[in-house]
């Protein structure tokens, strides 16, 4: 019998299509019959950050070429809809009465041709009465101007209101020889999937059909049905050009499309421009952190406090709850710290709403504790790797609970640190650094170390799968996950093939159609393999059991005597291989009983906690402040690896996004709430030139929480890399008296830090 396919470097089944004809993204669905004759949608967006709307004059715009109709909240009778996370925060899908950020949709224009809407939008006149603009988080917390007056405060989520203990006073650090405090900005970034948002809608026999670029079709279905109970929507997901968390939920533009199509009586297509996407696709991070860390002079950390102020942007979306739900629980990181306290407050501002972005609350936790460890190490004059080692939680194979109250599944942090220091040749790097310092080189070497643990599949613990075998011997895997680059088609085919013996090229994978797959939780939070993959694993096992019973009947044998020969995809009685029935034949035998198909829901033993260690190596030009990210060495332990090719791809991408946040990217507003980085010419999206060379070190500590032993890997590269890269930049100039530089560590910031 052939060996297992699992764990092998299997090339992607998805690739030939993407490489020869390109994917079929929403905007590519030119041949969809239901969309023939579709009109095009353009949104009129607020150009001011905070104002009352005293009137909207669409008369001139209605006369513009190609305009079919223009709608506002009033003409569509849109009712206020409450945030899922704070009932006092309500908005209409198109702004009514008030706008709260630049880019907020105010009206919707339907035109014959795609390019006519933008011209017409310029002719819509909105009478704005300016209000005080709140961009600065701390000012928003104390201002008498309320962005949502009904909420009663600009602080819209507070961990103490959630019943979590508050922080205390200086006594907390009474037993510490050394206490270091800092104020750090985990800056606002734009997720920037290469494909922007797009959606198309058609009404079919009184039902709404909606195609959308999303990470979670079933969630979008529920959102749309909640907003418009009459839609009975069917959501379908074509190829999706990246999401990174920002496409988990539907946005107002997408939710309102069905009603616009109904009003105008035509199918509709909508695709935003990149410049719109930069303002209206949710942003990520945006957390201000006050940190205190204390311990002994010989390097033992005794107490740690994190006070996080989370920018919620101009709505209370998921970004507002990541601080209490993800940052706080992970505040201890990989360290055995006896006392930890953490308070989070989320604050609305006149900026783009904050959503999930690769890591979603955990990168912020890791950044905080890793920065704190560096500051502590610098204060006591100890090597940062050594301070970390002294405080690591020792290896544990049973759940370990930290002082903040979070239990981790399994961990072996010191081995990860050792592996990465060894692979990076840490001592040689330190030696080279010392030599460059000694010589006073213009280009100084910086070495940053991080050790991290994160939480994956937090919040959800189940996923659905169904496998159907067709009479021609092919199989279809239906999954509740929703790939947008991760390679689920390959991965799920590997798992199904492993159990059934059906060759991978005879297995198709279907996702993202809510009529075909009513139950599914989508792809986010690094959940897919450990839940969706495990669901395919469980379903395939049950399918083999079912097939064995059908085969037993066909072969007139006892079930226990029937074996599956995976090498040829056929069942036979043990010892009599010549008389066999194939998967296709078994499917045909079940034709009158609904075919050979089985559906299963996998429920896991809980969230998993991938961990690892990173070393970043940078070079800093001390005359200009320019940073070059030379190399990232990373050891990321995601449990048992299904396909190293896919694993490595996830880590590489994560590292680049971490490097991007540490060095380059920041979404910036002026004090009036005008975006200063609202397109890809101004936003410092990382390119191949800035991205580092990457060296990965493997480590596999299986989790007991699912039968695959797999933990998530989609976000860990970002979580581990960001603090290591920032630390490396500071380290490069630490001999010049620099202790901290906020991200992104731009040349100007580095130069100022050196020269202050």
């Amino acid at each position, binding site marked *: 019998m052939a060996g297992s396919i699992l764990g092998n470097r299997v*090339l*992607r089944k*998805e*690739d*030939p*299509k*993407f*490489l*020869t*004809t*390109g*994917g*079929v*993204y929403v*905007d*590519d669905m*030119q041949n969809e019959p239901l969309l023939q004759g579709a009109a095009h949608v353009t949104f009129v967006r607020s150009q001011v950050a905070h104002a009352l709307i005293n009137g909207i004059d669409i008369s001139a715009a209605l006369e513009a070429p190609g305009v079919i109709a223009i709608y506002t909240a009033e003409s569509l009778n849109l009712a206020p809809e409450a945030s899922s996370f704070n009932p006092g925060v309500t908005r209409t899908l198109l702004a009514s009465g008030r706008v709260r950020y630049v880019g907020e949709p105010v009206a919707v224009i339907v035109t014959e041709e795609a390019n006519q809407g933008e011209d017409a939008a310029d002719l819509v006149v909105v009478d704005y009465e300016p209000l005080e603009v709140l961009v600065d988080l701390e000012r928003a917390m104390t201002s008498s101007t309320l962005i949502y007056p009904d909420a009663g405060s600009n602080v819209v989520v507070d961990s103490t209101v959630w019943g979590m203990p508050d922080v205390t006073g200086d006594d907390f650090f009474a037993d510490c020889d050394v206490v270091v405090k800092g104020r750090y900005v985990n800056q606002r970034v734009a997720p*920037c*999937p*290469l*494909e*922007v948002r797009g959606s198309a809608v058609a009404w079919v026999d009184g039902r709404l059909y909606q195609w959308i670029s999303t990470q979670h079709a079933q969630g979008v279905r529920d959102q749309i049905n909640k907003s418009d109970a009459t839609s009975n929507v069917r959501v379908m997901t074509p*190829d*999706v*050009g*990246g999401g*990174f968390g920002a496409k988990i939920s539907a946005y107002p533009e997408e939710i309102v499309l069905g009603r616009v199509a109904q009003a105008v009586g035509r199918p509709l297509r909508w695709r935003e*421009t*990149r*410049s719109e996407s930069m303002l209206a696709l949710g942003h990520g991070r945006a957390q201000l952190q006050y940190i205190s860390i204390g311990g002994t002079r010989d390097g033992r950390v005794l107490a740690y406090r994190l006070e996080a102020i989370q920018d919620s942007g101009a709505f209370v979306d998921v970004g507002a709850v990541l601080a209490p739900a993800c940052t706080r629980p992970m505040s201890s990181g990989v360290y055995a710290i006896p006392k930890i306290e953490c308070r989070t407050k989320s604050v609305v501002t006149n900026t783009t709403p904050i959503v999930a972005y690769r890591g979603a609350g955990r990168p912020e936790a890791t950044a905080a504790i890793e920065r704190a460890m560096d500051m502590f190490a610098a204060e006591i004059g100890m090597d940062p790797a050594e301070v970390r080692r002294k405080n690591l939680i020792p290896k544990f194979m049973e759940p370990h609970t930290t002082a903040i109250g979070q239990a981790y599944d399994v961990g072996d942090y010191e081995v990860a640190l050792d592996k990465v220091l060894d692979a990076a040749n840490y001592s040689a790097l330190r030696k080279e650094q010392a030599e460059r310092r000694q010589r006073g080189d213009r280009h100084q070497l910086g070495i940053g170390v991080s050790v991290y643990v994160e939480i994956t599949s937090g919040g959800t613990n189940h996923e659905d799968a169904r496998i159907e075998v067709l009479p021609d011997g092919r199989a279809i895997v239906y999954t509740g996950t929703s790939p*947008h*680059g*991760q*390679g689920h088609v390959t991965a799920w085919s590997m798992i199904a093939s492993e159990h059934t013996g059906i060759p991978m090229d005879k297995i198709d994978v279907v996702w993202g159609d809510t009529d075909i797959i009513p139950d599914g939780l989508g792809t986010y939070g690094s959940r897919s393999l450990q839940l969706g993959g495990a669901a395919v694993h469980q379903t395939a096992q049950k399918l083999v059991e079912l097939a064995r019973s059908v085969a037993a009947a066909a072969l007139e044998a006892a079930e226990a005597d029937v074996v599956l020969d995976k090498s040829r995809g056929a069942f036979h009685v043990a010892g009599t291989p010549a008389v066999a029935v194939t998967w296709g034949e078994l499917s045909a035998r079940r034709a009158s009983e609904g075919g050979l198909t089985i559906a299963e829901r996998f429920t896991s033993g809980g969230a998993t906690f991938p961990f690892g260690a990173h070393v970043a190596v940078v070079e800093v030009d001390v005359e200009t402040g320019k940073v070059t990210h030379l190399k990232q060495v990373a050891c990321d332990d995601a449990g048992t690896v299904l396909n190293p*090719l*896919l694993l*490595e*791809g996830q880590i*590489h*991408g*994560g*590292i*680049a*996004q971490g490097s991007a946040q540490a060095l380059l990217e920041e979404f910036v507003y002026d004090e009036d709430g005008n975006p200063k980085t609202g*397109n*890809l*010419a101004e936003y410092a*999206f990382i*390119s*191949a*030139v800035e*991205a580092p*060379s*990457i060296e990965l070190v493997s480590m596999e500590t299986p989790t007991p929480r699912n039968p695959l032993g797999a933990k998530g890997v989609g976000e860990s*590269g970002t979580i581990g890399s960001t603090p290591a890269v920032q630390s490396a930049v500071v380290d490069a100039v630490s001999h010049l008296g620099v202790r901290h530089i906020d991200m992104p560590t731009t040349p100007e910031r580095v130069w100022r830090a050196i020269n202050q």
Partner: protein
Amino acid sequence: MQVSITINGTKQSHDVEPRTLLVHYIREHANLTGTNIGCDTSSCGACTLHLDGEAVKSCTILAAQADGGSVTTIEGLSKNGEMHPMQKAFMENHGLQCGYCTPGMVMAAIGLLNENPKPTEDEVRLGLEGNLCRCTGYHNIVKSVLAAAKK
């Protein structure tokens, strides 16, 4: 205005507005949607294709400027069902994930090797600076191009 362009070996003629960009001509008139649009500032390179043998961002050129010219898109790279060596290299080295930047990246990479058949890693990175990818961290893209250069 009438614009005639040979696309992937077939001459096509379409009546278009003078302001039509080449990328819109390819996508909306020639119905070839492999070439993607990722920005509106000519920053991302998702729309890169070959015009008269040279890699260009098709959002920076009017269809009218390509009149009489010859265009190759991602759909025109395979010959007799056989992928171009660069396409194969991307597949073998996992140089793509979501696929959105991929057509432009592959066309840019072929253009790069046409100009510099044996580039160093740094030259590949510099040569692809105008093509953005959010998924791969560029690591495997660079690897793919270097692998293709060795063939």
